[in-house]
């Protein structure tokens, strides 16, 4: 295997890491409130812009800017749940989906109204991002890419552990499995759900921060965030570990399509793979079959 292949695999790995961060957000929200959050891409953009604003205000202090982005995203996620999704609980599935679409365009217009549609490059505030780290001789990965892959790895390993072992994780699982019973046992389901939304929004914001540092920042990158529902569905909407596999599949299809077919097709690749997956195995690779309302 030549270096060309290995570097192509690295590109796939980095893209898959993005999808892991995004897809896990979809899964967290779906497990909490049984809603497919089509506003995820715009929540991602919003978080990334908060980070950018932090950078501008502190004139380049990365820790402060990241704190701004994460805290702001957590707050936004909780507000969205408490202000919008909680009142709509118990409505038909379609209403939830439509509400998140409406939320998405409200968020997008707010973002554009505040920061304008101009494309920014937050990486300008931080030097040394593209500094290559040599893995073996002749093969290197940039610093930001290394951070992206590491973060995704931490999420893949850490999040299931957190859900399995920690008290709050157990509460989250309880609410996801049977909200009524969980409430009976004294779990405050609304604060648990708000926490799920906040966590998912924070993960979206982190993905957005990475994307804005690596590529660019603008209101139009919501598309990247929206594509994250493809790995989530392929893996199974209620399965965290499924996301990792789904992300690898989608990233492979996307990168290979971009390399060998056409960039336009690469943009649609996640959705094409998703269509095929939905046709063959609608409940996803690791999802539970009962999740799917069948006829």
């Amino acid at each position, binding site marked *: 295997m030549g270096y060309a292949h290995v570097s192509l695999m690295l590109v796939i790995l980095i893209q898959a890491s993005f999808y892991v961060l995004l897809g896990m957000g979809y899964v967290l929200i779906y497990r909490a409130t049984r809603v497919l959050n089509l506003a995820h891409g715009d929540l991602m953009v919003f978080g990334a812009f908060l980070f950018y604003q932090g950078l501008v205000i502190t004139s380049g202090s990365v820790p402060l800017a990241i704190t701004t982005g994460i805290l702001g995203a957590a707050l936004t996620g909780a507000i969205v749940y408490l202000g919008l999704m909680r009142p709509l609980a118990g409505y038909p599935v379609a209403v939830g989906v439509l509400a998140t679409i409406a939320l998405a365009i409200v968020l997008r217009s707010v973002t554009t109204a505040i920061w304008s549609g101009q494309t920014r490059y937050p990486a300008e505030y931080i030097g040394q991002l593209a500094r290559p780290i040599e893995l073996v001789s002749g093969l290197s990965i940039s610093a930001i890419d290394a951070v992206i892959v590491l973060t995704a790895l931490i999420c893949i390993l850490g999040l299931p552990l957190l859900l399995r072992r920690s008290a709050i994780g157990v509460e989250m699982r309880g609410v996801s499995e049977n909200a009524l019973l969980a409430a009976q046992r004294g779990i405050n389901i609304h604060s648990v759900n708000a926490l799920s939304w906040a966590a998912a929004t924070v993960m979206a914001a982190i993905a957005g921060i990475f994307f804005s540092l690596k590529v660019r920042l603008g209101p139009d990158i919501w598309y990247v965030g929206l594509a994250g529902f493809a790995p989530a569905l392929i893996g199974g909407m209620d399965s965290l570990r499924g996301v990792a596999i789904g992300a690898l599949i989608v990233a492979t299809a996307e990168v290979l399509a971009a390399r060998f077919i056409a960039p336009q097709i690469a943009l649609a690749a996640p959705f094409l793979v998703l269509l095929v997956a939905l046709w063959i195995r609608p409940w996803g690779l690791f999802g539970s079959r009962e999740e799917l309302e069948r*006829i």
Partner: protein
Amino acid sequence: MRYLNVLPSTLRTSYAREMQLLDSGFAKFWAALGLVLMLGLPFFLTNFWNAVANQIFIAILGALALNLLMGTTGQISLGHAGFIAAGAFTVAAFVTHFNAPMVITLPAALIVGVVLGILVGLPALRLKGLYLAVSTLAAHFVIIAGLAQYQASISYGAGFIISPPSLLGWELGSERAWYYFLLGVALIVLLLHINWLRSAFGRAWMAIHHRDIAAEALGIRVAQYKLLAFSASTALTCFAGALWAYHTGFVSVEAFDIHMLIQFLAMVIIGGLGSVLGAILGAVFVILLPHVITFATEALPFVNDIGGRAFEIQVGLFGVIMLLFLAFEPRGLAGIWARIRFYFELWPFKYRSWEA
């Protein structure tokens, strides 16, 4: 006009009367007056507002199609901007490659719509709710990407210019000619639509909406009728897309982005899901809203500084209004209309007795 109403309010004494579209002198009078007003309207409109009226007619076709699927059959679709695009590109392709006239392109768009509807509807036989929404949204992105690829390869990404068509010797060159053409098309489609809804098709679709398992048990072939609903809806949507292409005169893939999808969703939600009148009101509302906003920003001096952000504000307002309707008035404008009507019909009483 019973099917334009949300609630029937006249007591009927025979089946023949029940089947009449306009069942009272009152309804006939208002329908005739409405038709005369619609026919006379272009003489009072400037060219600009005439064009807006034409956009409303095309939007009504799209909204009716989406309402047929989402409101009547209860199958959520997020792919309708893609279907509009497919219709528009059918026209673009036929005109570019074969220089085909309208009598060929419009039926072609219908056929493309039927095929697309079956393709997109097939997953609906296995999927419900959320998963169907996702698969139609995925279909939207795949269609748009494919069309973008086509556009890039044929016209180097510049888009397609479509000259004003003529239909059987009738040149559709001016907005006024378009107005009468589209008014006729909209009336025919509306009549067809209402008649579908009160035939066996409509009853089957509504049964599937309410409970598909029960519908199957009653002997309705759920798979067949779902596919039928999908293909009828996408065919009508592609048809609207084809008219859109001719009326706009320019087809480019950028026009069919997620905003168009949101506009159509807003039409059926704000209008009221499942109501024909709602689809019409929703289309009028959604097309007029940007103009009302522009008008308001020009009339009110203290909001002048939003000038450059009018588009964002308009899109954001769509979202806010959609959310408000979803949360507080799920029956939409049609529901509000029914309530107003009821108030006057029952006056001086407040409630109708349980069995009227």
